[in-house]
């Protein structure tokens, strides 16, 4: 377990290093930060001296090294717009985004597993067939369209749910959270549903396909021949094998989910990191953009490491390094 963990840790550090180089290297191509930073009246000579002063004229690697040393100490630069450390600005918005991501993950897990499993067990049942048909539509429609449509239906026409913002939030261990108040929960429903509109159908289809394959396998047939109950065969023997590939895909999809939060947060005016990122891009707030990419990269790497560890717990063959098959 320790060897496995330390190997994953080295990988994670390497990935973070690559992300930081890429993130840092795109900052030169995003436009002139000076234009946003200073007014029209500042002369070109003054701009040049300001650039020198900020180190923007130094070679790339000199700039990167300076950035790297600071980054190790948790300093990812200062936002041009907010005039505050970029990391602090992002961390302020992190709870909102994580809330969105967790809410979505919860929806995906709660619905995809039972629907996928039953769709595999009863492939001809009309309701489950309907769901499978709808899942194709769900996968095909882009998130921003789902989001706008759901705002139109549930906020504008029916007036059931709020269309923007987080609503009422409370402090919890220094984090602002919305899911503890009724108003906050109401505000979560639409963004989470919109965000899960692609992930949920994807997982339903994935679980169904995997489960159907597993149900045809010899060990399931043997389980029937042993006279086990249907419940035990479906939800222990079959489900555990079904979830192995699903966990792997799930880990990868966490990254996609965070990427989709940019769209969802923008449509719902959700005060999270994604919304912040889009604003930062508009303002050419390069330190903030770089910091966002690094924070998201870090979340991605941590999530994948956790998924790998869970996979190791579920799949006994992953622990092969410890014990070998013993012959007769």
């Amino acid at each position: 377990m320790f060897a496995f963990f330390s190997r994953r840790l080295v990988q994670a550090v390497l990935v973070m290093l690559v992300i930081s180089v890429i993130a840092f290297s795109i900052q030169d191509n995003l436009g002139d930060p000076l234009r946003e930073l200073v007014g029209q009246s500042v002369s070109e000579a003054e701009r040049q001296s300001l650039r020198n002063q900020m180190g923007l004229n130094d070679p790339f690697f000199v700039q990167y090294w300076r950035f790297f040393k600071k980054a190790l100490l948790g300093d990812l630069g200062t936002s041009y717009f907010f005039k505050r450390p970029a990391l602090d600005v992002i961390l302020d918005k992190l709870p909102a985004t994580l809330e969105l991501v967790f809410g979505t993950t919860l929806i995906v897990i709660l619905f995809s597993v039972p629907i996928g499993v039953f769709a595999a067990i009863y492939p001809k049942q009309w309701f489950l067939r309907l769901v499978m048909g709808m899942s194709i539509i769900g996968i095909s429609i882009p998130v921003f369209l789902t989001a706008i449509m759901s705002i139109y239906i549930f906020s504008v026409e029916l007036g059931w749910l709020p269309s923007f913002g987080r609503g009422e939030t409370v402090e919890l261990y220094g984090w602002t959270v919305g899911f503890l108040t009724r108003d906050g929960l109401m505000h979560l429903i639409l963004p989470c549903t919109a965000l899960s509109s692609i992930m949920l159908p994807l997982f339903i289809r994935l679980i169904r396909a995997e489960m159907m394959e597993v149900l045809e396998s010899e060990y399931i047939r043997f389980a029937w021949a042993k006279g086990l109950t249907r419940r035990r065969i479906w939800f222990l023997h079959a489900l555990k094998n079904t979830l192995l590939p699903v966990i792997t895909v799930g880990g990868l999809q966490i990254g996609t989910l965070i990427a989709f939060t940019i769209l969802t947060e923008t449509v719902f005016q959700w005060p999270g990191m994604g919304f912040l990122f889009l604003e930062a891009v508009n303002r050419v707030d390069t330190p903030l953009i770089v910091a966002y990419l690094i924070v998201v990269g870090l979340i991605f790497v941590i999530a994948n490491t956790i998924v790998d560890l869970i996979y190791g717990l579920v799949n006994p063959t992953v622990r092969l390094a410890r014990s070998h098959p013993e012959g007769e």
Partner: protein
Amino acid sequence: MALLEVRNLDVTFASWGGNLVALRDVSFSLEPGERLGIVGESGAGKSVAAFAILNLISRPGYISGGEILFEGQDLTQLSPQEMRSIRGNRISMIFQDPMMTLNPVLTVGVQMTEVLHAHREISAEEARSRALQTLTRVHISSPEKRFDQYPHELSGGMRQRVVIATALLTESSLIIADEPTTALDVTIQAEIMDLLLELCELNNVGLILITHDLSVISQVSQHAIVMYAGRVVEAGPIWEIVNNAQHPYTQGLIGALPQQTTPGKRLNQIRGVMPSLSNIPEGCAFNPRCQLVMEVCRTSVPTYTNIGSTRVACHAAGSAQTGNPLSLEHNKT
């Protein structure tokens, strides 16, 4: 009373292009503690017959006729719940490939004890000690260690021992073994077969052994049935079938055994292939491959004739042509 009596069993697979008959009019019976072999090539319907007994034919197959009397009870009439209480409890199965039979994500112990929990009110410790005892009976060394291991940590032979132990846990009166040694290393095939036999004999358990290898059956079982294209073509005591085969197909199977060939010569084979279910020839299904084919074979299905203690479905059976022992010459052309 016979332990198992299968009467006129029909199995059909429903498909878009019409129903396919996988088993037709299959009958055989088994006394308590008796061993019966079912022989035939791939596609003859051996496995379907075995799974039909436990009503475990994969969809879209179903039993479309006949009776399966197990200890006097017709299994085809049981509710799913009643059928479940028979499976693994009164009738156990051993599958072909032990690499595929055991669930990769559950430990040996879980997969063994769950059978006991499914059929008995039994505590976890009691189930564990029963499982450990049975593992010892199938000659697995350090059963305590194996109990907590996963299938991938065991060799193929050891896994098949675990499967056999699982079949013995509940003291079933019938074990159906579907090619139990085919997937194993040649060196341990005999070992596993001997173990299976010994345990069946010791506990007076009936055994249905399905194989394509007549030589295995001739060493193991008392009776045998030979299947071709979903029908029983010959049935009788094993020594009769091996020494005095009546049906040309059985003769061909015996002729195809490597033991029947002089070393250095090419092995004999039955020409042609088993017809697919959708394309079974008219008349006797074997007629396109048969050396003794007559006009009547192409039009009418042969009925059973009793010759000595064997029952054979062949138009030529009993007539002078088959009187002589099998001629191997025909295959050498």
